[in-house]
């Protein structure tokens, strides 16, 4: 009986974790979607640093040539 009780408690813990993870993943995907739309609407690259890094690479390439 003790073992049963332990097992059902474990099951409750696992179900609780599953709910937390589902909630988290759902929030992440909706937030990521919102940010993507907001960046596109403002005409910004998805990665804020993308443009900056490219600029540096190009100038380095020129030095090599």
């Amino acid at each position: 009986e003790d073992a049963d009780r332990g097992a059902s408690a474990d099951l409750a813990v696992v179900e609780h974790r599953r709910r937390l993870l589902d909630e988290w993943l759902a929030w992440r995907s909706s937030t990521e979607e919102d940010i993507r739309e907001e960046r596109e609407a403002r005409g910004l690259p998805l990665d804020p640093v993308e443009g900056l890094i490219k600029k540096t690479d190009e100038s380095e390439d020129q030095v090599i040539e």
Partner: protein
Amino acid sequence: MRPILLQGHERALTQIKYNRDGDIIFSTAKDQHICAWFAHNGERLGTYHGHQGALWTVDVDPTSTLIASGAADNTVRLWDIKSGKCLKVWDFNTAVKRVEFNEDGSRLLAVTEKRMGFLGTIVVLNIDLDPEAEQDDEKKLVIECEESKPTVAGWSYLSKYIIAGHEDGTVSQYDAKTGEQLDNTQVHDVDGLITDLQWSPDRTYFITASKDKTAKLVNARDLEVMKTYPTNTPLNSAAITPKKDFIILGGGQDAMEVTQTAARQGKFEARFYHKVFEEEIGRVRGHFGPLNTVAADPQGKGYASGGEDGYVRVHQFDKGYFDFNYEVERQARAAMQQ
């Protein structure tokens, strides 16, 4: 996880920052110079001298060209990482406790200390990432915090909001363009001074550490507290790990209250919690005093901690760290791959 011990500071560490690639670590301490280190072997890349007081804060721009620092000498300084040259000094009325670049490195915020006759403020400066450029003198925005002094602050996604943590445990959200306060929420206890605020990689949420012995995960958009991590010690720092859903906490009782034995044995620990499940999953011992700052490698390969003992400890995560998964995480991943 065998740490690399970085010895270069003679006083307590105040902040550690990784660059975006995770290969360089910058550290500040009360001993007036900034150190730069290679993350993979702990070799010192350089030091930056010029400040005339304890250093409280450092940040590196997203292209790893410049660093900014703030100190008890009431200045913010901008440095060229490669040459070590100080490019600019901005003067303030009081000590500078925190600096942070926004997501594209075009702006820098500085948090100034409250002192007789001066309110705590958050100041915004324009930055030109070209080390040859003339930097702008002007303070583009000054937010005066009349209710409770700000202790930490940072830029949200899209540089839309400035988020600040305060002495009275509240977090506030400001419009980053106008400085108007949009929201203020009691996130921590009323006497739970907020000691740290660090971002998720996309800056849509952040973690706060507080003297009230908890850390909180907060949504930047509405300041909703999404997760709480309770501990049994006052916290000085909290970081979010990329790649894995963990958070890292650092703290410890102040020297006065610490037993000699605890200090001798290096019992001060970094604590790992699962970010989503709010459960503690492990501790890493080593420092001989409270952990003042923790930082996560943006590439997810390791973390670094800085202590009151004057040491920086750099840890590379091992296979066990990456393999560690809760059953429900494994199932969720399997379901996604189908």
